[in-house]
């Protein structure tokens, strides 16, 4: 199923961010504009230190910008109070982190049910949705395993299943394939692609891994705190 990518789910306008104090301050992002279409897998690429991860954190409501606006699903994210921003993230956003972050004590299905439980979903339904999401990423038979019994690729698929089970509208992924071998990187890329095209989720993925490029709808190339060019041709 192909979604109308002309509809925008997220837009960032005139975003600026610096780190450090006066005199030693380093400008990371400068007056940056970005728009993410619905149901598309968008990559943000660029050299190390160009501000990719900072941009992702600002768009996800984790790091406050110095200036600019982030609009997600019609909501000005940074005008919300911290607690309301948390609630908004919990309801509408999913995350896939670099080198999956899972609780060592929890089994794969519990990792997902834990987050769903915090969303207020009843235990039985959370369990059902967790199992369905794990089946979806091909981990049904391994749902009862803890992280130490899963491979790096499988852990990343648990993270994707967690994002999927939340049924978010935007998924933020930070270097989701960089620690994986070719086979697992391709599998994770396919799942991210499927989240966008089959589930209509806007996936924004910060990466410098070229193996993800063939699966993307568009690529934002960053340089020195700005979007240098947007690549949509031949995608």
């Amino acid at each position: 199923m192909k979604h109308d990518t002309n509809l925008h789910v997220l837009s960032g306008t005139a975003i600026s961010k610096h780190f450090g104090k006066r005199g030693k301050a380093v400008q990371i992002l400068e007056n940056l504009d970005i728009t993410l279409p619905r149901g598309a897998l968008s990559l943000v690429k660029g050299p190390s230190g160009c501000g990719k991860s900072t941009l992702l954190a600002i768009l996800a409501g984790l790091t406050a910008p110095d200036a600019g606006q982030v609009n997600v699903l019609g909501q000005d994210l940074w005008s919300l109070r911290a607690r309301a921003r948390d609630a908004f993230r919990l309801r509408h956003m999913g995350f896939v982190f670099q080198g999956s972050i899972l609780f060592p004590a929890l089994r794969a299905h519990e990792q997902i049910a834990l987050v769903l439980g915090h969303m207020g979903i009843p235990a039985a339904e959370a369990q059902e949705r967790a199992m369905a999401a794990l089946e979806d990423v091909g981990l049904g038979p391994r749902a009862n395993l803890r992280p130490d019994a899963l491979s790096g690729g499988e852990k990343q698929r648990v993270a994707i299943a967690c994002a999927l089970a939340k049924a978010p509208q935007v998924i933020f992924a930070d270097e989701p394939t960089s620690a994986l071998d070719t086979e697992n990187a391709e599998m994770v890329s396919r799942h991210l692609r499927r989240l966008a095209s089959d589930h209509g989720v806007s996936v924004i993925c910060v990466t410098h891994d070229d193996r993800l490029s063939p699966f993307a709808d568009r690529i934002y190339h960053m340089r020195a705190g700005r979007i240098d060019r947007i690549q949509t041709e031949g995608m």
Partner: protein
Amino acid sequence: MINLAFKSVLYCWRRYLPVIIAVGISGLMMVVQAALAMGAFSLSAAPVRLSQADLWIGPADAVALDQSRGLSELAIGRLWLDPDITRIEPFTNPNYVSIGDNEETGQMGLVTPLPIGADPMLLARAIPDDLRQKLRDPGTIIIDRTDARKLGVALGDRLRVNRQSLRVVALADGVRAMFGIQLIMSELTARDLAPGGGTNPAFYLARLRAGADPQVVAERLAQGIPQPEYRVWQPSDLSAATVRSWALGSGAGTLFLASSAIALVITLMVVSQTLGAAVAGAMREYAALRAYGISFRAVQWVVMKQGLYVCLAALVLTALASLVVLWALHQRGVASELPVPLAAAVAAGLALTVVISNLLALRRLRRADPASLLR
């Protein structure tokens, strides 16, 4: 909802073990210290606990058994007139003597004169009548079994006290003094040993007519006289006041309280470091929860619950280790006592250190930028 805190403590027990051990050892130290101190302090009230008096009468200004300056028989004249009082027996604060051949290097002894007549009250619970009658012979004494072991004397042996030779005619249990060796003897032997005397008894023990209410009699004795020279005590009140006076008013008590406070502060420092390390070990996972949108309060609750489970495990460890140590001390005849409120206070102190340590560890989580932790 998945109980993340419980599962984490159970599965990652190695991460939390240093905290459990740190809290457990501190708890054990405090419990043993408290039990030894209370055991020693309770010895100060042993004459009250081991006697069978219904009331104790001491000077109006005395706040503990060992803080009496004496009370003349004249001052308690009214007691003889009370219809419910059937017997009155004097209690004299022990005289100090030297045990051993050399007076300067000998051990300190405390002379406790014991009435030998019929139906005595003083130390009646510890020295039954058949043992007491053995003191009728001049120059005979009864000592505590543990003290006898310490002195290396057995039943029938002789002991040099103030250059006199006294024969041990019986060994009793629980009649130890807080400092020194308690030598229980007849009033006659005591007079021979430390002549002079002439001091007023410190307290008087009173026996009431069967069925008389000690509370009513005590209130009656306190009424009618504008400023009585005496004060009437229920045995339990006098015992508690004497222990309290040692625990809170003496140098030994202050030392105990100060060392307990130091132990708590050291525990807090060690536990906050170890618990901080345990929380820091899971910081990325907590940051991930925050990124998902789970509130700081919810994450805080998870960490607090982990602290609670760790604290419970540590308290169980403390309780088990304390039981073993206190049992071993008891077997060796060391005086130890741990009242429930004191044990509860130690447990509360330990729980408080874990809570404070947790709050310190959470401060790091609150300050941390989730985005930076996720990289």
